[in-house]
């Protein structure tokens, strides 16, 4: 897998192994109930002792944040669809290529986080697994999850570096 930064600011990830492409698409997909879980865990009221404020937060702020994240998710899905389409039309042995337009970079940063948080919560991953200290055993389902998590961390790390360089 290679990262390439284009002159126009777009990022390109090329030579993506089909397994990694599959894990990427599968891990980014979010079910509706998972959004609820995200909302409860990470978008919860920041001032639980104030009941009125908490009610307002849930009623007005949380839906706005969810809308923002879902729109970011749509950007990411579009880029992944493009990758899949390109792969379908390519000769059999050609590796995948993902283009992340500069306008979608922030969406990717947020959604990679959503995906990692969801994976960690869904599979109850422990700290050593999350920090990448455990080598993934690809013969197990959990190993594939760890690979997925490490893949997302790596892409996020590269995108953060690009973003920081830009500023």
């Amino acid at each position, binding site marked *: 897998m290679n990262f390439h930064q284009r002159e126009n600011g777009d990022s390109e990830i090329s030579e993506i192994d089909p397994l990694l492409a599959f894990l990427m698409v599968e891990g980014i997909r979010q079910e509706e109930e998972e959004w609820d879980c*995200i909302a409860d865990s*990470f*978008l919860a009221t*920041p*001032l639980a002792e104030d009941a009125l404020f908490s009610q307002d937060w849930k009623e007005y*702020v949380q839906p*706005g*944040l969810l809308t*923002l*994240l879902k729109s970011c998710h749509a950007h990411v899905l579009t880029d992944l669809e493009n990758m899949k389409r390109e792969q379908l039309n390519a000769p059999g042995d050609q590796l995948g290529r993902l283009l992340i337009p500069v306008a979608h970079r922030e969406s990717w*940063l*947020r959604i990679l*986080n*959503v995906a*990692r*948080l969801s994976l*960690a919560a869904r599979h109850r991953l422990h*700290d050593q697994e*999350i*920090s990448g200290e455990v080598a993934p055993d690809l013969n197990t389902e959990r190993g594939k999850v760890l690979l997925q998590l490490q893949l997302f*961390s790596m892409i*996020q*790390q590269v995108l*953060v*570096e690009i*973003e*920081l360089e830009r*500023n």
Partner: protein
Amino acid sequence: MFKILCQFTSKTELLEKPALSEERLLASSWQVIVHNDPVNLMSYVTMVFQKIFGFKKEIAGKYMMEVHTQGRSIVWVGPREEAEFYVERLHGFLLLATLEQV
């Protein structure tokens, strides 16, 4: 009627508006606290602090390390409305943030 009003106004005294003491000013301040979680990458947290608060990389990194090593960091103090705005933005990047009155 006139008499009654005069009686009323004559008994009304204007109170001087007390100056806010430093203690009271502080009491009206709110702090934005970011909490540690095992999932967010350290570089990501640093980047988010830079984006939201406009911190330089070193300052953002210092706060990030505080979150990482102490479990939480007070990243901003000020009026409640602004504090709420910052927490909302931090939540938008999936960082665990809460509000506390100083």
